[in-house]
């Protein structure tokens, strides 16, 4: 569905019409991605009692506008979109860059935020200088680097079961093609803009410390982009952290362990909505 904000944002609703009266789960993707990285998790929750909004962030795939240059601006746009959709209480789930936006969104909408799930997160989320340079100077190389580092090492990136979103799919090449598609559709500035926003985001610890709601960390043991140790400062800053570590997943853990991520989010949403009105 299109959210009536300016710029217009697109949100996938999990295969069911969005109902703002239901408890809502908001999904926020990472850099150079779109809503489709959450296909199984979002579809499952939409068919299990939740309203689902899996957004394309501004300037990504179907959403209009240039990609905002900061995490805070992205959170502003998302907050406007949720208000326009009449979203009441919600859990926000963000992966990688989306996890930082989730923190800022919770800061902007504390009365509505019932829980924050940070998937493959880190703070600070500094992107290595050579990779950042490659996003500008050699974007094809940069996307290959991101793709390789987003998956479990070596052949494991090609043999993960179950494959996502179903049998017969290649997690590795889907991820690369998605990044390439966004580059073609939205331009070559999206990736460096996203990465600069991640690198420059400085308010992670104070924002996490101020959260009044439960915070779930879903981390992949094979994540070389945001290894679990890189989330420790955020975990320590949160008042109510819960940690789920998926043993065989890398940074792209929604596709490498779709059931593990789904279970973690579904259980978290069930719990926080059960204990809050």
């Amino acid at each position, binding site marked *: 569905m299109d959210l009536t904000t300016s710029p217009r944002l697109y949100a996938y609703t999990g295969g069911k019409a969005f109902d703002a009266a239901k408890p809502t789960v908001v999904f926020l993707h990472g850099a150079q991605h779109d809503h489709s990285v959450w296909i199984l998790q979002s579809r*499952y929750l939409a068919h299990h009692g939740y309203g689902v909004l899996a957004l394309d962030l501004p300037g990504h795939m179907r959403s209009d506008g240039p990609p905002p240059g900061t995490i805070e601006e992205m959170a502003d746009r998302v907050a406007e979109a949720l208000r326009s959709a009449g979203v009441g209480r919600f859990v926000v789930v963000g992966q990688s860059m989306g996890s930082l936006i989730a923190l800022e969104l919770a800061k902007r909408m504390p009365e509505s935020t019932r829980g924050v799930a940070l998937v493959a997160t880190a703070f600070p989320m500094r992107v290595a200088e050579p990779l950042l340079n490659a996003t500008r100077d050699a974007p094809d190389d940069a996307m290959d680097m991101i793709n390789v580092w987003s998956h479990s090492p070596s052949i494991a990136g*090609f*043999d993960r*079961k*179950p494959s996502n979103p179903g049998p017969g799919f290649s997690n590795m090449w889907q991820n690369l093609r*998605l990044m390439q598609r966004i580059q073609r559709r939205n331009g070559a500035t999206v990736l460096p803009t996203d990465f600069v926003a991640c690198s420059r985001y400085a308010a992670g610890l104070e924002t996490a410390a101020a959260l009044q709601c439960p915070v779930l960390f879903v981390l992949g043991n094979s994540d070389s982009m945001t290894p679990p140790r890189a989330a420790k400062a955020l975990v320590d800053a949160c008042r109510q952290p819960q940690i789920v570590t998926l043993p065989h997943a890398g940074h792209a853990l929604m596709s490498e362990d779709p059931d593990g991520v789904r279970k973690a989010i579904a259980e978290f949403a069930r719990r926080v909505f059960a204990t809050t009105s």
Partner: protein
Amino acid sequence: MPVRYPGFDTLALHAGQPPDPTTGSRAVPIYATASYVFDDSDHAAALFNMERSGHVYSRISNPTVAVFEERMAALEKGVGAIATASGQAALHLAIVTLMGAGAHIVASRSLYGGSHNLLGYTLARFGIDTTFIDPRDLDSWKRSIRPNTRLLFGETLGNPGLDVLDIPAVADIAHDHGLPLLVDSTFTTPYLMTPFDHGADLVYHSATKFIGGHGVAIGGVLIDGGTFDWMASGRFPTLTEPYAGFHGMNFADESTVAPFLLRARREGLRDFGACMSPHTAFFLLQGLETLPLRMQRHVDNARKVVEFLSSHAAVESVAYPGLPSHPDHALAQRLLPRGCGAVFSFNMKGSRAAGRTFVESLQVFSHLANVGDAKSLVIHPASTTHFRVPDEQLEAAGITQGTIRLSVGLEDPADLIDDLAQALKRAQKVG
């Protein structure tokens, strides 16, 4: 900061299959089962509704078949693959996923006879028309596109004259018109060419051929490069509009890069049912493991046989893009640097009777209707694979009554050359 994906040889052995978590089996187990036990009612509903990944019924997916699919996708650099009962089933699945009655295809005229039959006769009966064109004539590709065209289609190496499809140029034409390019890559396999790297959008194989390599199983596989933007094209409502046959699912909403595969599996395999059996997948996987080794040997042997035939007095011409005399030699050097495969045709001098004597005199080459086997094969296209094709179309495709097609196998090349030499000698006596 260079990164590297696992190499082709490694993927051919490992992609799609970790060791079996239950038994530790290193080989791919044959999951000979029609269906799969659900954990509970919620699990069942979630699998049916595409909320979870897994298997429901082996017409739709099967763990052994999925290994084959995911390995082929890995090798071709596709977002996924669907294994089918045959190469013909893969071609049919691609077409019916994209279009229905009233649609139109522009296809190379240099096609396998079975593909020509499907497009020229059978699909026409169902309201899908095809214009066949000279694949080397790029203007003809453009001129033949109509408002209702939905697909451009050719073979990486045309049958039987081995026209090399100029994939980058034809793909540009297709994309300029908002259309995808489908290629049959059976003769080249991903070892010799990965068509997605050159602009193709969909690839299929008759896996019966080089992919299996042993000639013991019939199978096909359809791979999606994930490169074509179906939404931007606006010509493919089967992928971008709600589908009543799956609760109003809009496949492009579900997957940005793989709506084609979702629809092909959720509708095409479900309803047409031309799936691959796990036993067939197992056979094909045995072959796929050694694809890089075999293809290199196929190509090496083919070069030696081509060299021998090219200089033989009883041979009028040899159509092999590796030869400077072939019209697509320069293109082949660009698109097929590892070699031009191991299936090619040559024209004998003399009468049709001489051709018959030649085929019947061969001892190592087997006379049969197949290609891509580990064993060397021979056939006379005009009287077999292309016997339904009208004479004028045969001529246009470069097939004469004297055309002989060889599929060069993995035998000692000296034995192959000796066999050809003695058969040519006998044929010459017939004149």
